[in-house]
């Protein structure tokens, strides 16, 4: 979900994705950088993202991922269900207020 959300902002390569996740979450989310790639492969296979070879800011050949329409739809679905889950948790945690 996070990956799709970030890619919605624009195409990006793997290493940059990791950087963005780390920065925006204030290093709160410690992900093993490598685990990003199997996830990206799964999304490629599902057609949520597309990839092509390009160059990074440092002029290195990298694979750049961009979100596809199917990916946008998937993201919307996931956000909806995520919000509902959060909502549910919130209600359970604050029973008195509800």
């Amino acid at each position, binding site marked *: 979900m996070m990956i799709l959300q970030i890619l919605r902002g624009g195409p990006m*390569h*793997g*290493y940059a994705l*990791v950087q963005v996740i780390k920065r925006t979450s204030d290093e709160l989310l410690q992900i*093993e*950088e*490598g*685990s990003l*790639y*199997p996830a*990206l*492969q*799964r999304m*490629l*296979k599902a057609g949520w993202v597309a990839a092509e070879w390009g160059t*990074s800011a*440092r002029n*290195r*050949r*990298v*694979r750049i991922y961009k979100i596809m329409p199917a990916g946008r739809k998937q993201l919307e679905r996931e956000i909806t269900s995520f919000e509902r889950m959060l909502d549910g948790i919130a209600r359970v945690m604050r029973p008195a207020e509800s």
Partner: protein
Amino acid sequence: MNWNLIRRWRLADEAAKEVAAHIEEKVADLMDAGVPEQEARHQAAREFGNAVLIAETSREVWGWAWLERLGQDVRYAVRGLRRDPMLALTAALTLAICIGANTTVFSIVNSILLRPLPYPGSERIYWVNERIGKQQMEVGAGPDYYSLREQNRAFEEIAAFDSTTLNWTGVEKPEQLDAAQVTPSFFRVMGTPPMMGRFLAPDEQGERAPAVVVVSYAFWRSRMGGDPHAVGKTITLDRLPNTIIGIMPQGFDYPRETQIFRPLPMDEATQRPRSATRPMRLVSMLAKLKIGVRELELTTEMARLTHNIRREYPKEIETSGFLNGMAILAQPLQKRLTGDLRPALLVLSGAVGLVLLIACVNVANLLLARASARQRELAVRLALGSHRRRIIQQMLTESMMLALPGGLIGAGVAYLAVRGLNAWQPLVLQDYPAIG
């Protein structure tokens, strides 16, 4: 090489390149932040995780993993079996022999009991015979053929025939031929038109029928060299010239091994009306059931016909007691052809089935003994985090490696056995179609 494999190499290559680029970028970033290169490389590798594993998992996403694992299992199984060749040989051979025996017996059962006769509408072809006194006869009386034709309501066609031999002369190697003398209706009952030429016309029957013959495919092939102009030629049979008017198609083999079909020398005028002094000709009879007539209706019809025919006999025969228990019977031709063999074949197939079961139990025992010797190996694998499913998969692959050669050799054994049986022609199978 196939397209999948090329694609797979490309995927592996791309994944590796991508990972390498990632690490390089990271190292560059760290060095920009002032970390010495050596240190930066270590840190990058550490934070990235197990690069090889990740590249592999990335690839597995595309669905090649099961194939790779299967390959591993097959190689492992082959190595394991080579270490224990006696076991492998025993198991595979046991399976091979039993599968071979089963397949052979099933081939026989299939050709003789299950497969319908190779004639159109063969399930409607009935064998008609008679019972006189308590004696089941192979044949019926000539006059009955005419009575049945005249009175029956269940059959669309009835044919009479008998078998004989003819001396073929006027050729280099004179020969005695198996022949059938048939009524023109015979081929309508069998539902099979000649491959070439025509069959007997309605007026080509009786004692004054023209000297015309229809020959079998086998005769045409082997004795006439497949001559395309065979129809119209003359052959000398029992010293008389006979014109060939037709050739039957391949696979038409009834009565079995018949080479020549010619008109049945029987006339209604010599057979009917019945009298105590006139000899009756005995003939075999076939009839084709009308579509939609049920077994029960046929039984009633046969009883009715029996009753009618008894009344056709003159008083002196009826009172002599000769007709006591006389009946006209009909049974499916296939059943008649397989009648004697049916119980024997069923027993045989049951027996080989049981033998296969026993063989399976034996092989299972062998494998069980081997498995208990391998408990330690499995325990170690489980302890190292191997998936239970993965281990079951491997065990199944190993069993397949035994069963597959067993099955293949078994099929070979069966093939040879069937060929042997067809060449040897054991007495009990002689009257039946070739096994295939």
